[in-house]
């Protein structure tokens, strides 16, 4: 189950952060997202072990904590998407699929002429699309 998604701009400024649990753990999730930004920077700036996946957008599992797994995705415009999930067995294909749809929703939200680049995304349509994508995460695995 996904507990949190976040969009972070290229200056590590938060553009959108949404948690999907009923508990009051928003602060802890924000903290996890913040820590994962360092891991993203390290992955991108250390090409020695990346090899062929150096320029891929999907960064994969960033780091597992005791309860959560954190996945990262870095776009060409240096915008980072962070996904925090409590699932124990998450398929790579599912996460990639999630990020692809999330990226499409993000691009549509940013193309809004009333959106100011660098400020938070306030579009309700974006929020609805994100919660739809989150709900269908892992459910469409027919295998």
């Amino acid at each position, binding site marked *: 189950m996904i507990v949190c998604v976040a969009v972070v701009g290229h200056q590590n400024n938060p553009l959108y952060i949404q948690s999907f649990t009923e508990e009051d753990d928003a602060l802890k999730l924000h903290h996890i997202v913040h820590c994962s930004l360092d891991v993203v920077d390290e992955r991108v700036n250390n090409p020695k072990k990346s090899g062929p996946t150096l*320029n891929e957008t999907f960064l994969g599992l960033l780091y597992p904590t005791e309860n959560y797994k954190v996945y990262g995705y870095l776009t*060409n415009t240096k915008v980072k998407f962070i996904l925090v999930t409590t699932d124990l067995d998450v398929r790579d294909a599912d996460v990639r699929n999630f990020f692809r749809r999330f990226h499409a929703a993000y691009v549509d939200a940013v193309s809004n002429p009333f959106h100011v680049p660098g400020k938070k995304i306030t579009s309700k349509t974006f929020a609805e699309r994100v919660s739809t994508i989150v709900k269908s995460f892992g459910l469409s695995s027919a295998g």
Partner: protein
Amino acid sequence: MGREVSESCVDGLLTEMVSTYCNRFYANKPELAARRIEAIGYQVGHQLSERYTMERPRFSDHLEAIKFICKDFWSELFKKQIDNLKTNHRGTFVLQDNRFRWLSRISVDPSLENGEAQDPSAVAESKAAQATSMHLYFPCGIIRGALSNLGIPCAVSADISNLPACSFVVRIKA
């Protein structure tokens, strides 16, 4: 995808935008009008680059980003690629389009064809050149916005010494 509009609508919008900014909003201040139009282009380029780099892996250096602008980005915008790319390998790139779509319908003033006296035709020619150059601030802004979003701050200017070919000079800030 989304809904589409006809190209003539976009042409009409761009023509009207330049005309409004030059003749109504900033009537006697062409530099301010130019800056405003370029700023609009900057935001458009910023958003378009977000959309057109969606499915691609990240660029490893400036040259790849410029090549993306020349090929995929230009194809999405103008249905053709940049015809010629030159660089001095020190941060300056010249992108040449031999038939720039947004200038293809600009007419040349027929009084220039007569060549009666040198002075009036030279004045008329520079006025035509100035009118044409106002239409180029928008695409310059688009290129600058797209490159800035890819992490490459730059300055973009246009050169129309031989219409309908148009060259965009990109100078990357160090």
